[in-house]
């Protein structure tokens, strides 16, 4: 079980590293958020799975932590992105920005 746990920890830290790299490489806040949200979720999951494999008595605690991360992580990234857009930060390169269009038309309050 110790080896399985260590493999999970390595996978977890790899995903955390990739998401940090994403934060540096992506061009604007919105795309950085993509790397930040997804990479960290998976990284955290695998780190916790690793701990759970090494210490089976912490299984249920690890499970509840995973559930709370699943519930809260998307909420915080959504709130940050919404606030960013409302402050008027533009998209670096964009195919379309429907949210800004609807704000101009007054469908969504500014």
């Amino acid at each position, binding site marked *: 079980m110790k080896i399985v746990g260590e493999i999970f920890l390595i996978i977890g830290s790899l995903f955390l590293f990739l998401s940090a790299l994403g934060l540096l490489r992506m061009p604007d806040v919105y795309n950085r958020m993509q790397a930040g*949200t997804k990479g960290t979720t998976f990284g955290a999951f695998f780190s916790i799975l690793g701990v759970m494999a090494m210490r089976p008595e912490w299984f249920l605690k690890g499970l509840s932590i995973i559930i709370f991360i699943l519930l809260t992580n998307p909420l915080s990234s959504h709130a940050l992105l919404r606030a960013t857009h409302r402050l008027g930060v533009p*998209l670096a390169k964009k195919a379309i920005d429907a949210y*800004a269009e609807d704000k101009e038309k007054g469908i969504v309050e500014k």
Partner: protein
Amino acid sequence: MRLLLSTLVLFLLWMMFVASLDPQEIVTGLFVAFFTSLITGSVIAGKEPLKWLSPKRWFYFFLFALYFIKELTLANLDVAYRVIHPRLPINPGIVRVKTKLKTPIAKLVLANSITMTPGTITVDVHGDTLYIHWIDVKGKDVETATKNIVEGFEKYLEVIFE
């Protein structure tokens, strides 16, 4: 009914935290769960507590969980690929999608699920319209975006929450 249900949910949560069958822990847990339920029971159980007992909803919740784990894995591999790729293959934009879901809790779970899946983050929810930041825009019109982003989740969530 509502009180009983939320006491049960909170008690199970308590047992997950303490992870022991010591009688002291169980008695404390029951007390705490009961008194918390007196205050917040209607929030936890919702307006129609009988929904919790339907096996069909639970079965679809299980299917949804499997589908969600698959999408979550794909999301991570996809974003990891884009980050490592030397040319950074992204084509970002914010698109509009429509949802058929009515209840607030269903919309919340939908928005959260979208945030966790490949290249999409919910920026705002306004009535039945969701604004999604999409890292690789495949279609700018509402129909294409809805088909790509929302429909996979919607068919499960409709059964679970509506």
